[in-house]
């Protein structure tokens, strides 16, 4: 039996790679931007790249905001990737102040990072950065990151980072200069990763496989 995953198609982002990674890990994928498919999904992925406001507009114009919230309340697994993770939060300060899906308390703020010598680090933060287990997270066992070791690298590309209100929402962090980046988050059945698991080689595929088995 193959596991079914619905990937939200709302006109934004490279959904081909996400789809391929899910299929590679044994999933059958339904690409859809229809509210009824989202409500009926056994597992749901919210991908996305680009600007926060555009992403939320894409969801709103398709009438997907409420269906995603209702889906999340059902207890079935939801995974937001990159912009998709950021949209799980309550608000973003990217070019203004925008409301998000508000499934995880916290905000999205610009990356401001300095190197030890005081020089400003480049933004966007692009590249492979090691994952760290935050102090408040006892173990990655039985989470999206099961089987991943601390220090394994994932591929990031972003100019803004989530700042969860609760320490307990943090599943993994990353360090960029003196900036603490929220690399992966969790709130019950709602998961998010700032990096691209579908572009993070074997480490990323492990997480995708974990999600498919949820």
């Amino acid at each position, binding site marked *: 039996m193959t596991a079914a995953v619905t990937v939200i198609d709302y006109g934004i982002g490279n959904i081909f790679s996400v789809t*391929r990674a899910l299929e590679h890990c044994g999933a059958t994928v339904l690409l859809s931007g229809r509210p009824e498919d989202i409500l009926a999904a056994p597992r749901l992925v919210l991908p996305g790249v680009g600007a926060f406001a555009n992403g939320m507009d894409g969801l709103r114009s398709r009438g997907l905001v409420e269906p995603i919230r209702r889906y999340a309340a059902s207890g079935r697994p939801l995974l937001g990737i990159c912009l998709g993770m950021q949209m799980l939060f309550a608000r973003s300060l990217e070019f203004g102040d925008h409301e998000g899906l508000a499934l995880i308390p916290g905000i999205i703020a610009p990356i401001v990072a300095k190197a030890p010598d005081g020089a400003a*680090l*480049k933004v966007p933060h692009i*590249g492979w950065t090691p994952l760290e287990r935050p102090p408040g997270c006892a173990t990655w066992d039985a989470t999206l990151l099961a089987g991943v070791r601390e220090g*394994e690298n994932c591929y990031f590309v972003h100019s803004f980072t989530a700042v969860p209100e609760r320490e307990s929402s943090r599943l993994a962090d990353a360090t960029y200069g003196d900036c603490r980046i929220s690399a992966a988050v969790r709130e019950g059945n709602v998961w998010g990763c700032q990096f691209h698991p579908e572009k993070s080689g074997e480490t990323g595929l492990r997480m995708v496989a974990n999600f498919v088995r949820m």
Partner: protein
Amino acid sequence: MANVRLIARLDIKGPNLIKGIHLEGLRVIGDPQEHARRYYEQGADELLYIDIVASLYGRNNLRDIVSRAARDIFIPLTVGGGVRSVDDVRDLLRAGADKVAINTAAVNRPELVTEVSRAFGSQCMVLSIEAKKIAEGRWEVFTDNGRERTGRDVVEWARRGWELGAGEILLTSVDREGTRKGFDVELVEAVTAACAIPVIASGGMGTLEHVEEVCKRGRADAVAIADALHYRRMDIPQVREGMRGRGIPVRAVERSAEP
């Protein structure tokens, strides 16, 4: 210092992976997919595909090659060659590319850089610059694989591209490309000093010392390697270990514990 990315560069002509010198005198290396798979399995951080004769063969060629690659290669893919419009970018992203490199069309119409970064985010807008040295400390922007002059100064153009919304710069030294004589470190240094977006140094990699120089003195954020990999003079783990040994931060590649 962030990890320096190791990028395998695949120049494409028609269905073939090719390699030239100074972007000319092309020689067929083989099937791009076979090489791409090998670099992925060796732990390349990214792959970069450039169709060097896109205008002759049409863009579909590159789109097919990329969608084939994206089927079972799970690292970032950057694609360039003959990209002229926001629609072209959308096509390539839909085919599985993560970023698009634009050279000639951006020179002809700089607003395209802004249009692409607004539509898809600056993270996928890579400004590709072909640079030729014209005097001490001065480089000119070329297009069409280093054949056409533009009269633009490389450092000014790079800074302008950053202001227009480019998220990254692919900087190819036409003088060094395919020569194995080392990167044009002064060029890379001048561009990294002028803009606050990542710069990929391309052209001239012959030895690990060359990589060390372009990372340390040139402050390159990423290095593109073609020749040395295609001709199997080196493999990715050798380059990675060599860099680590020279104090350059690189991604630690390891396999997860089996479940």
